[in-house]
């Protein structure tokens, strides 16, 4: 099956989509269930993703990146998610979060020190903002870092962190000036092997199981000054900047997931016969497919728009939030209808639609819930 074609898509985007799709069909599809049970992507797959250029898409070649724009990054994540949303989540997180913060706010030396490893897949990275008591209220951090000679002493716990159980490094936000709220937060790069840094529990999740999720724990962990990213006190603002770009990735992931669920539904509707004919000949099924296609098309256009805004202004803003809100919500709806089209078989693990549905629910929550997106959009509309 060929990639979805947009009227505006360039030959470059077509080549890219085809190439990423071929990669996903060959390297990921045969082991979608295996990755789900392993609850992580194996190191060897990270390296293949790195060789393919999928782990640092929007960054310059000097840092190991592919030098692409947000639109092409979104197209790539979409094609991965169409086959395996969990793998796409690991890829989206790797592209946007830790690498994003180091690229946007780190020094040249820090970029050269950490980004090539992340880009090649040799090093896996986490990004830690969320804590047990700081979710949507993301700056109410209990993690603290205190001044020490030549660096900082970090204490605290980060939760629901992608790649927590095996990351080689993590960008972690912690309070360094407790009275200053968002402006009292500093970002640190913590590296595996540092004394006082370890992985905590690994979560058992509803979906997105191919992507590892867990806790990062810091007990009197000394972090040298050279590992502070951006000026002390700027970590909170910088984290918001990172999330602004991350939303495009999650929205693209939602579009790809919905496309994958619809692909499966169309194939099934042609093949499944009831009452003497393929169920694709019944309007009840046709209308579901029409609604799926319309929602996916709208969401994809919104992702393109958000990517264009990000590219031209440096900030996706409410366009990014609208894309993330809409795409994630429709991905849940489309995946649910995909199960309905498959009937009883859709409820079994013999088909992938149950997995698309379980995976989809994360998207209305991760990197800013639907409710947080609505707050951002409303703030813009009512300003």
């Amino acid at each position, binding site marked *: 099956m*060929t990639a979805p074609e947009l009227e505006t898509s360039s030959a*470059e985007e077509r080549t890219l989509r085809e190439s990423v799709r071929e990669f996903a069909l060959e390297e990921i599809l045969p082991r979608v269930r295996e990755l789900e049970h392993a609850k992580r992507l194996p190191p060897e797959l990270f390296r293949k993703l790195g060789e393919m250029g999928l782990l640092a898409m929007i960054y310059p070649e000097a840092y190991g990146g592919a030098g692409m724009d947000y639109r*092409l990054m979104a197209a790539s994540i979409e094609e991965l998610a169409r086959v395996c949303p969990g793998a796409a989540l690991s890829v989206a997180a790797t592209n946007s979060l830790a690498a994003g913060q180091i690229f946007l706010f780190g020094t040249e030396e820090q970029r050269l020190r950490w980004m090539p490893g992340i880009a090649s897949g040799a090093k896996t990275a986490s990004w830690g903002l969320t804590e047990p008591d700081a979710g949507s209220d993301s700056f109410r951090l209990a993690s603290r870092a205190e001044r020490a000679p030549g660096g900082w002493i970090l204490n605290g716990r980060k939760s629901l962190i992608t790649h927590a159980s095996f990351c080689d490094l993590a960008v972690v936000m912690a309070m360094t000036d407790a009275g200053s709220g968002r402006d009292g937060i500093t970002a640190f790069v913590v590296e595996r092997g540092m004394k006082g840094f370890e992985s905590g529990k690994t979560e058992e999740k509803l979906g997105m199981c191919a992507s590892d999720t867990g806790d990062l724990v810091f007990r009197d962990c000394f972090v040298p000054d050279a590992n502070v990213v951006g000026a002390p006190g700027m970590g909170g603002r910088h984290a918001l900047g990172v999330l602004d770009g991350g939303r495009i990735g999650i929205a693209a992931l939602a579009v790809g997931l919905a496309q994958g669920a619809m692909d499966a539904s169309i194939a099934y509707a042609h093949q499944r016969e009831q009452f003497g004919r393929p169920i694709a000949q019944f309007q009840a099924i046709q209308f579901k497919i029409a609604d799926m296609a319309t929602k996916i098309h709208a969401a994809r256009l919104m992702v393109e728009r958000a990517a264009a805004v990000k590219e031209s202004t440096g900030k996706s803003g409410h366009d990014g939030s609208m894309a993330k809100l809409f795409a994630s919500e429709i991905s849940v709806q489309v995946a649910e209808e995909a199960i309905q089209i498959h009937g009883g078989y859709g409820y079994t693990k013999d088909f992938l639609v149950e997995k698309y549905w379980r995976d989809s629910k994360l998207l209305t929550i991760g990197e800013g819930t639907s409710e947080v997106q609505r707050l951002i959009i409303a703030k813009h509309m009512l300003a």
Partner: protein
Amino acid sequence: MGINIVCLVKATLPTEAKIALDAKGRAADERAKPIINPYDEFAVEEAVKLRESGAADKATLLCVGSAKAALEPIQRGLAMGADDAILVDTGDRHPLELDGAATAAAIAAVLKTIPFDLVLCGRVAVDTGAAEVPGRVAELLGLPLAQVVNKLDVAPGRATAHREADGRTEVVELALPAIATADKGLNKPRYPNLPSIMKAKKKPVDTRPLEAVLGGAPQATRRVVANELPPGKGPVRMVAGAPAEAARALVGALRDEAKVL
């Protein structure tokens, strides 16, 4: 002394495309997006591998087609690692207006203007299935030709090609410059990685109008007068009843109605 390879690439319809006929009864080329002819992909992969191994210095793509259709094979080939491309732009012409003779004439005319040692292409284009262009180009330029090659070695001045012959592998040696056509099995074409796709758009594409290349209008030697689609699948009849009875009815139908027994 460097070896320059020229890869002939053609835009074809995806193999899963549903072929439809346009108002003039020609296989429509507008409804499905073209892809690189899959056999040409083996040729490009081989050229890029030879360049990467140091056996060749340069891999150039050569495509005859409309600028719109040729975009895909050229983009794909450059992303796979070819160094540059020459497009012979056929303008608004329907692909069928340019037969194998005219296409080969255009390719030979371009090859006379550039240094090359080896021409590689797919053994056949999956759309027309004619497999005539490589032979015609070899004839026009007086080049040695090895068809349907599944292993290729290149050294200064000569190439050694393996071909599947009847019950044996035939090993042939060609003095360069020569032309070889790629079969499945020659290699496994790579899917281009993202940095290569980004670099591809910066590689030079030399566009030459067909008339300028040929020094006039193309001379086709044959004309497609009709295209016929295969007949559609007939209705399916289910034979009902108990096994013995159904089997009797089925045999009866096969013998008396379908007349295949």
